């Protein structure tokens, strides 16, 4: 283990990603991510200071649609596919720990 990432980091990331990991999943994930990060260190050999990050393969700009309404999805069909709904809206358990 190169200790590039600790179990504490993994717990923090799992919380961010909303993934409920078991204790041994945390241990395994820490070891696996550490192994990967060790491999990814190969790019430390590259001098990237002058390099511009590439985010999209094909350069396009100003791609727009006209501001015209198109009939969307059927209310009933969508609500029927929801895990749980109540008078036309999506039902979720109490929201805590965050703000809107």
């Amino acid at each position, binding site marked *: 283990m190169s200790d590039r990432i600790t179990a504490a980091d993994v717990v923090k990331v799992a919380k961010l990603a909303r993934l409920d990991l078991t204790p041994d999943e945390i241990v395994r994930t820490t070891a696996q991510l550490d192994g990967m990060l060790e491999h990814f260190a190969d790019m430390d050999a590259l001098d*990237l200071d002058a390099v511009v990050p590439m985010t999209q393969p094909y350069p396009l700009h100003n791609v727009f649609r006209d501001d015209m309404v198109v009939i969307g999805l059927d209310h009933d069909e*969508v609500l029927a596919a929801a895990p749980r709904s109540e008078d036309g809206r999506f039902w979720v358990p109490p929201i805590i720990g*965050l703000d809107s």
Partner: protein
Amino acid sequence: MTAVPTSAAAIAAGVRSGSLKAVDVVEAHLARIADREGEIHAFNVVLADRARAGAAAVDAMVAAGGDPGPLAGVPIALKDNMCTRGIPTTCSSKILDGWKPPYDATVVTKLAAAGAIAIGKTNLDEFAMGSSTENSAFGPTRNPHDTSRVPGGSSGGSAAAVAAGFAPVGIGSDTGGSIRQPAALCGVVGAKPTYGYVSRYGLIAFASSLDQIGPFTTTVHDSALLLDVIGGHDPMDSTSIPVAHAPLTGVLDRGVKGLRIGRITDLPAGADPDVTERLEAAFDALREAGARIIDVQVPAFSYGLTAYYLIAPAEASSNLARFDGVRFGLRVDALDTNTMYSATRAAGFGDEVKRRIMLGTYALSAGYYDAYYGRALKVRKLIHDDFARAYQDADVLLTPTSASVAFPFGSKGDNPLAMYLCDVYTIPSNLAGHPGMSVPFGTGADGLPVGVQVLAGTLDEATMFRVGAALERCAPAVTSAVALHGSAS
């Protein structure tokens, strides 16, 4: 019942002329499915009744003097990460089990408009994350050439379906090699066009800046035919390239005389001997056909794996956040929303998907962005620029598609990196956004298919297909899995 040809082009020609009935075409393929699907498991769902009805409609149209289109009556196996209205679309994940999209992906609409008939939704590594289709929540797909081995992945189901003769055409998606690598391992033709060539609308995203849709076929001509149908600008995809593409079917017999075929001298090592032996044979064949073989360097090529496995998981961690149990799919009940999210996602996602979400979330998180995601984007630029330089000297590049032939189930063990290395030759063209295709070129020592990869520059599909067609013409004859294992029709 008239003998059903194997190529999509021949089937469509027969159906359009009325000499062949689409219903017979569908029945012949359903028969092969009934015969071998049990051992192959290429499909998450077979759409027998819908296919029969669709075929009858195509025949009726022909009888009425109409033209159903260039894919009239051609059965298609769709990778199960493309939305099909009212038909389950699962990404081979428990989190989407039973979900029926309320809309069709653009490719699905275009295929239907061309007269094609969806015969089933095919198995994949969950959310297209894998290279063996072992990561499917619904069990692996087996390689029709040797059912003790993987078909490759992530589009293993579509590759196996075409190799087993379940459909003349399969549609897959390629983020880091997920069309080309399974095509090579299953002995069929697989093509990934330039990023933006085929619309991604309705393709359930893995990594948005890398995903591209492409065909699996038994011939290079069929591959070109399919791209001519599904390619082109789509206003529903902001990254879709707004140009009309010249038909690729027109360039196939132009030959390779005078073309410059690049050999990457600093290619990552590690390919098995029977793979490198086939690659050398391919170079020789093209030289024979009048092409010039020249050496080029792509120094950053070997850093592709690192850049890819930081960029793709980062985008995936965001793309897969919408699977939260609120609006569709699986929900595990809990007393508050956050607990519901974590429980739902823990139960709904498999190990590899969780691993990549974790890696991607970490790579983007405060304090690590610059060191990982940020640097990976710069490496991506280096790779792009190195290719650009190489394409000044060479028209196309030739590499192995996969470092090995189809490998046995479980042989990559518990180390995820071992599996990631399967994509070392295919990943760089996704990062650069360039087209690439895998063409079968004989077999390895143990009689398993080997594919050769043809890479070209942005929007140079035409040259890539000229070379692909030339390779096909001089490829040694290989007994197809269909012939090998017989068939009901």
